[in-house]
């Protein structure tokens, strides 16, 4: 048994490819826990960042600077009364959030955090991700229909029409990125996520900068389509409060509503990781070829530790700026403790054995975190699209651009 567990550590493959069930389960739990923590952190970041964009402070009371607010929200939602509308179809009402949740979380088994740091590496990785993320449309439709009320029904119809429309543009942008993986000596591309990043490594460029501006336009189409696909601002008409009283999840309360939110944030992180893998080089550090060599490798591998130390410094600045009043004593101590934990993690990440294993996971997560911040920035900045404008952009603007980029990429690939 112990040999079975230890034999994987020598192998240079993902647990799924190695057939090692124990380590695959460990990886699944780690990814699941990581995504849940990321969703809670995203909840906090969204409220604080939106508030600061709007020149206010956001939650400040619950923990120091509102750091415990997501936990308070989760506890509140868990203890709320579970209301089901009387004429609602109970089975469909129950299963709709589960379908969205399962579809959003199943995608994580192919996301490549590193060359061997994935749960598995399917041969059809990107096809699997696109397919499974399209299952969440079913959950939306079922949620709207099962609520037996007209606001959710209209919200569900609009939301699913929007998601299906932007899936087409997303798929075409993905195809033009896959096309770029085949521009090597043997002329064969690959659909596996790890293979796509390795193709970027072999061709020594992020696909974002390949055949400039074609990679850039394809990335732009995907970036817009992924925001619309996850029903986020500025494409969030189906769940906007002033238009449709929360759309398809109006009748859901308590834990069921939190499942919807969990699924939505998980889907956001999942499509951001598709964008990072396909265009932004996945787990590669910036400038792997222009700034190559031992010293530059060392410099870039110190980044994880420095990031956590910088966060710890922010915490200590916050501690210094706390009001010196006995009511704030617990918050000050809490924030100082949080800063100390972050500094400790930063110091652990400076140790060479940890550094060598962690650096690709770190670069992947930093790029995805950048996308998360962009999501919040879009929500604070852009006004909402009206529904007919939304459909017009999806079909009449993004789809022709995506088709054009695909044809031009193929032509450039044949010429060069």
């Amino acid at each position, binding site marked *: 048994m112990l040999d079975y567990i230890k034999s994987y550590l020598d192998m240079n493959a993902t647990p799924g490819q*190695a057939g090692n069930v124990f380590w695959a389960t460990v990886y699944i739990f780690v990814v699941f826990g990581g995504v849940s923590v990321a969703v809670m952190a995203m909840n906090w970041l969204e409220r604080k960042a939106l508030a600061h964009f709007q020149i206010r402070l956001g939650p400040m009371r619950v923990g120091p600077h509102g750091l415990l607010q997501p936990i308070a929200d989760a506890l509140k939602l868990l203890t709320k009364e579970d209301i089901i509308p009387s004429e609602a179809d109970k089975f*469909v009402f129950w299963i709709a959030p589960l379908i969205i949740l399962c579809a959003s979380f199943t995608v994580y088994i192919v996301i490549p955090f590193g060359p061997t740091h994935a749960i598995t590496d399917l*041969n059809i990785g990107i096809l699997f991700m696109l*397919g499974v993320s*399209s299952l969440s449309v079913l959950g939306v439709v079922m949620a709207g229909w099962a609520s037996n009320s007209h606001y959710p029904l209209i919200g569900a119809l609009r939301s*699913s029409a929007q998601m299906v429309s932007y*899936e087409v543009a997303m798929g075409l942008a993905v195809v033009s990125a896959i096309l770029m993986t085949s521009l090597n000596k043997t002329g064969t591309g690959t659909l596996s996520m790890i293979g796509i990043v390795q193709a970027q490594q072999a061709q020594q460029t992020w696909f974002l900068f390949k055949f400039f501006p074609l990679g850039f336009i394809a990335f732009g189409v995907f970036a817009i389509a992924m925001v619309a696909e996850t029903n986020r601002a500025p494409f969030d008409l189906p769940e906007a409060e002033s238009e449709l009283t929360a759309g398809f999840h109006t009748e859901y309360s308590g834990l069921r509503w939190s499942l919807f939110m969990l699924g939505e944030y998980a889907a956001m992180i999942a499509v951001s990781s598709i964008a990072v893998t396909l265009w932004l080089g996945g787990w590669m550090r910036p400038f792997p070829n222009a700034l190559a060599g031992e010293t530059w490798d060392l410099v870039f591998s110190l980044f994880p530790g420095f990031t956590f130390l910088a966060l710890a410094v922010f915490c200590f600045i916050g501690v210094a700026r706390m009001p010196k009043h006995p009511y704030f004593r617990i918050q000050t101590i809490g924030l100082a403790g949080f800063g100390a934990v972050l500094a400790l993690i930063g110091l652990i990440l400076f140790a060479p054995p940890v550094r060598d294993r962690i650096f690709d996971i770190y670069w992947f997560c930093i790029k995805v975190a950048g996308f998360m911040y962009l999501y919040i920035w879009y929500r604070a900045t852009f006004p909402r699209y009206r529904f007919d404008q939304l459909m017009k952009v999806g079909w009449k603007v993004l789809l022709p651009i995506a088709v054009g980029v695909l044809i031009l990429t193929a032509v450039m690939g044949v010429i060069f």
Partner: protein
Amino acid sequence: MAPVATTFFFYFLSGLAVLGGILVITRKNPVHSALALILTLLAVAGLYLMLYAPFVAGVQIILYVGGIMVLFLFVIMLVNLDKSAKEDQFNKQWLVGMVAAAALLGLFMAVYLKGKYLFPIQEAKLPEQSNVQEVAVSLYGNYMFAFEIASLLLLVAIIGAVVMAKKRI
């Protein structure tokens, strides 16, 4: 990677598929039938994976479950009447239909009993090329003409569906 627990997964997936099929034809509520059909389609995608056809499994999930079933659910929501849910579910010719289905079942059983030893029992060797690459070479090489005609068919279907569902042409 060697296949693992093939018999269990085969019986599990085919049991799910047949159960979903039975639920499709017996539920009174069309939305429940649609959900059962989704279950069947996902089980059949799993069976395709067992048959070493990952590309067809992926296409099935994207197109069938993510596209066609969404279309069905849309239309069910648009034409759903409470009155029809309380009526009878089987139409006037149900007895004749069952007799015809029984005849078909008899035909299938005769074919099975006669021909069940026709096919080679040992499994065929695994393909060397990646499955997607093989399908792509075949699709864009030998069957290019059929591919173009399929795209023309889809264009005609799009125009036809839009024209028929419009309120005023």
